[in-house]
Every structure is written in structure tokens, then in C-alpha cells.
């Protein structure tokens, strides 16, 4: 199993992501944003958290136009798996691989704490290790995590079972408490909470580890 973690100037969760992926058996390559190709045979591309390009213009906007994004889109189009966390989620919405956008938190403050989530949907590579409706807790750390999409798009996401995670106590104003969403083919997940920061006993919370563990299990069995 091969994973690639994209790295931009300002990424700061890239190495945590690598550690979490390696812990479940992925062979991980770090891919610089100026590269225009992914390693051959990449199963999963992880777009990590951080402040790519200093959040200039809009969070994720410049990263979404970096040279590596052509290869990322081609990977997604041929059915490859993509996981975007925090700034990675912002990048995926800016590329158009996921619908909607992440606005400034409704309370205007940067929020860094562990929040409660419910797993709305467990039919995907990423969420299959959880029970549907299960309550978990993961850390968030963002200033712009207020998920927005028009009502028709939100209805469609809900109707197609593509809301992966919801906040149990909405911290940032996200529409319909959305914390993470899946693409139409369910192979791209974008989420604001950080599973890689809750994936080791030393973190004091291993709710995120099951996301990574299930990816390995599903890919091995496939």
C-alpha cells in the first residue's frame, strides 16, 4: 500500500500524517508541491493540515493551483483515494474535488480543542471502522472551518449519504453541523478535525487511529 503526502510551504501536519499512515503499514512518500507527478502505484494521497502559502488570498487557494494538483486531480478521477484534513479539506474544496467552501469561523476566533463528533456515514474506506451514529472525539485547530454550501448542495450531500462527520456541539457555524464530507464516488474525504492527532496512545485519544486502521484493512482485502 502506497500513500503520498503533499507538502506545501506552510504545511505543518505533514509529518504527523506520515507517522499515522506508516503506523498502519503504508509506504509513505512526501511529495513537494512543485512536483507534477505522484509516485507510481499511489493508492492514497493525503493533503495535510497547516497554513499552506500563509493562507494568503484564501485558505488553500494557492495550494489548489500548485503543480502537484494536476496529478492529484488525475489520481482522484481514476478512482484513487484522497484524504484532506483541515487545510487539506480547504485545498480540496478549492480544487473542486469536494463541493462547498470553508468560511471564517462564525465566532471569528481560532479554535484549538477536542470536539465531539458523530459518524454520520460509515460506508467508505475512511469511516468503515466506525459504527454509523457512533460518537467520537477528535481535535480541531482552525480559523476557517465554517462549512458552507448552498441549500441544494447540502440537500444533495445529505441525500446521498455523503456527510461523513458532524459536530455534536457546532463550534464554528458549519452548515448542518458538517465536519467532513465525501465525494460522489466516496473515495475523497475532506474533514476539519485531525484524526492524525488522535492516533497514538501518547496522544491520549485514539479515536482517529481507527480511520487509518480501516483504510489499511479495506485496501488489503480489496
Amino acid at each position, binding site marked *: 500500500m502506497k500513500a503520498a503526502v503533499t507538502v506545501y510551504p506552510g504545511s505543518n501536519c505533514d509529518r504527523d500524517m506520515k507517522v499515522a499512515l506508516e503506523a498502519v503499514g503504508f509506504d509513505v512518500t512526501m511529495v513537494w508541491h512543485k512536483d507534477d507527478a505522484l509516485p507510481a502505484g499511489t493508492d492514497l494521497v493525503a493533503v495535510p493540515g497547516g497554513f499552506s502559502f500563509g493562507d494568503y*488570498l*484564501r485558505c488553500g*487557494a*494557492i495550494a489548489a*493551483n500548485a503543480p502537484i494538483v494536476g496529478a492529484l486531480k488525475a489520481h482522484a478521477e481514476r478512482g484513487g483515494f484522497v484524504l484532506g484534513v483541515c487545510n487539506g479539506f480547504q485545498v480540496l*474544496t*478549492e480544487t473542486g474535488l469536494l*463541493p*462547498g*467552501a470553508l*468560511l*471564517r*469561523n*462564525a*465566532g*471569528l476566533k481560532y479554535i484549538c480543542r477536542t470536539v465531539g463528533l458523530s459518524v454520520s456515514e460509515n460506508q467508505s474506506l475512511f469511516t468503515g471502522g466506525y459504527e454509523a451514529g457512533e460518537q467520537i472525539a477528535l481535535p480541531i485547530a482552525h480559523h476557517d472551518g*465554517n462549512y*458552507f*454550501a448552498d441549500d441544494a448542495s447540502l440537500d444533495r450531500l445529505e441525500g446521498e449519504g455523503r456527510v461523513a462527520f458532524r459536530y455534536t456541539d457546532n463550534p464554528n*457555524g458549519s452548515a448542518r453541523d458538517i465536519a467532513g464530507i465525501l465525494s460522489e464516488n466516496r473515495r475523497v474525504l475532506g474533514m476539519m478535525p485531525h484524526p492524525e492527532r488522535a492516533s497514538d496512545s501518547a496522544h491520549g485519544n485514539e479515536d482517529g487511529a481507527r480511520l487509518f486502521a480501516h483504510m489499511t484493512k479495506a485496501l488489503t482485502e480489496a
Partner: protein
Amino acid sequence: MKARVHVMLKQGVLDPQGEAVRHALGSLGFEGVNGVRQGKVIELDLADGTSEAQIGEMCEKLLANTVIESYRIEVL
């Protein structure tokens, strides 16, 4: 040539920063400020002959996120 691009959040998209500015104006004693919307202005220094269509493409591809923002181009 120069052009100016005005980027604003679309109507119906909550603008918490604009709301905070509105509250601040109220607490400074300015009455009757019913709403504040905050956007951004981007000035472009362009090669002569750049068409408005090309500037529009810049807006669509990078300068604005048309999911949440609208833009207006002003050629100076």
C-alpha cells in the same frame, strides 16, 4: 495598464467579519449602521492589451472562489 478586482462574499453567505465591524461601529456610537459587508480589492499591474476576458479568467481560476464570492472587474 492597471485593473482593479473587487471581490465580495455573495449575498446569503454569512460574513462574520462584517458583522463584527458593524458591532464595533455601533459601540463607537455610530447609529444607523444596518449592515457591513467586508470584501477585498486586488490591484493588477498588467501588460498593455490584456483583455477583460483574460482578467475574468484570472478571477475564475484564482482571485475569487465563485462558490462563495462574486467579483467585479474595473479596468483603470
